[in-house]
């Protein structure tokens, strides 16, 4: 079967980098919150923040790339309702990939914990120390993360629906191995 028009290599690279990091972040985030206080926890939180901010940078790059090179058009096999919701679900994923690291950064600032990116770059505090604000931000970060996980499950389910059930080659558009 002829594949649909694919994404550019840069878009693919950014997509898969973010995908790997986000999967790691979800695992790390779920694991670290229940750790007893110790070095493992301190390092887990540090890496969670460092990788999260990396995702933020990569997502900003992706948004810039999308603005410059919009995604390829969907193939004709995609139905009208799928065509209608696809941009919204992709847009919401990108919004969440910005909102999660920003809410995490805000949390760290409100909690009075300075973020030094990979121990190299000291980031400014976005807000001053405020434990009540921290608690609100923590609730936001929690629900944003669960929304992202739910949406990612739908994202993967949609790919499976296209490529396993219908075999319409949607995955080839983003496949790292397809031209």
């Amino acid at each position, binding site marked *: 079967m002829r594949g649909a028009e694919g994404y550019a290599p840069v878009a693919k690279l950014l997509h898969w980098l973010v995908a790997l990091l986000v999967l790691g972040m979800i695992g790390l985030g779920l694991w670290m919150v229940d750790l007893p206080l110790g070095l493992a926890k301190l390092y887990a939180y*540090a890496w969670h923040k460092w990788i999260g901010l990396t995702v933020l940078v990569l997502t900003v790059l992706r948004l810039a790339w999308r603005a410059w090179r919009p995604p390829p058009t969907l193939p004709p096999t995609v139905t009208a309702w799928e065509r209608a919701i696809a941009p919204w679900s992709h847009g919401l994923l990108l919004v969440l990939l910005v909102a999660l690291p920003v809410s995490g950064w805000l949390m760290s600032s409100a909690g*009075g914990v300075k973020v*030094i990116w990979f121990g190299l770059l000291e980031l400014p505090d976005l807000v001053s120390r405020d434990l009540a604000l921290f608690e609100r931000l923590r609730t936001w970060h929690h629900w944003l993360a669960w929304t992202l996980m739910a949406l990612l499950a739908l994202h993967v389910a949609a790919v499976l629906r296209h490529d396993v059930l219908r075999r319409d080659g949607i995955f080839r558009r983003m496949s790292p191995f397809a031209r």
Partner: protein
Amino acid sequence: MQASSRRFVLLGGVACLLPFRALAAEQLHIGGRHGSIDFAIGDSKVFRTTGSFKDWQGTVLVDDGDAARSTVAVKVNTGSIEMLDPQQTAMLKDVDFFDVAKFPDMTYRSKRIERIGDGTLKVEGEVTLRGITRPMALDVAVTDRRPDASAGARYARFRASGSLKRSEFGMVKYVEVVGDTVDISIRTDAWR
């Protein structure tokens, strides 16, 4: 600012230790009711966090006399330490850090006070924590001074900052990761 206020003197501590000249001094109170003691672990690249003490009080005397003979004394309830995370708070109260069951108080006493500028003072003193006494200097700024404040009213605002090494007080846990230097920042109203 009046010339007399530029000769501002910070005095404190136990009344019987004061020189007789200090009888003209203003005895002021500072504490957690009108102020905060915040601290930050300052030299870590991985984890740089902050906390505060909620319950503390001190005595300050203000005089236009001899700064060099002045004292200030503060007592902090170590059990009132508060961090962002309840686990961290519990850990700091435990034996590896403040050991609050054994050492419920931390004290600061000035040894020498020097006026270094208009409304700024250098206070050299000693911190006693976990039964260990070490020197700590504080840079103090005095603002909004109101010599005519009535009893129970605010007299001035103080901001003080200093730092210490926690390892000197036997608090060495995670020192290689979390850092040793602790920056301390005090903001308080002083009232009559």
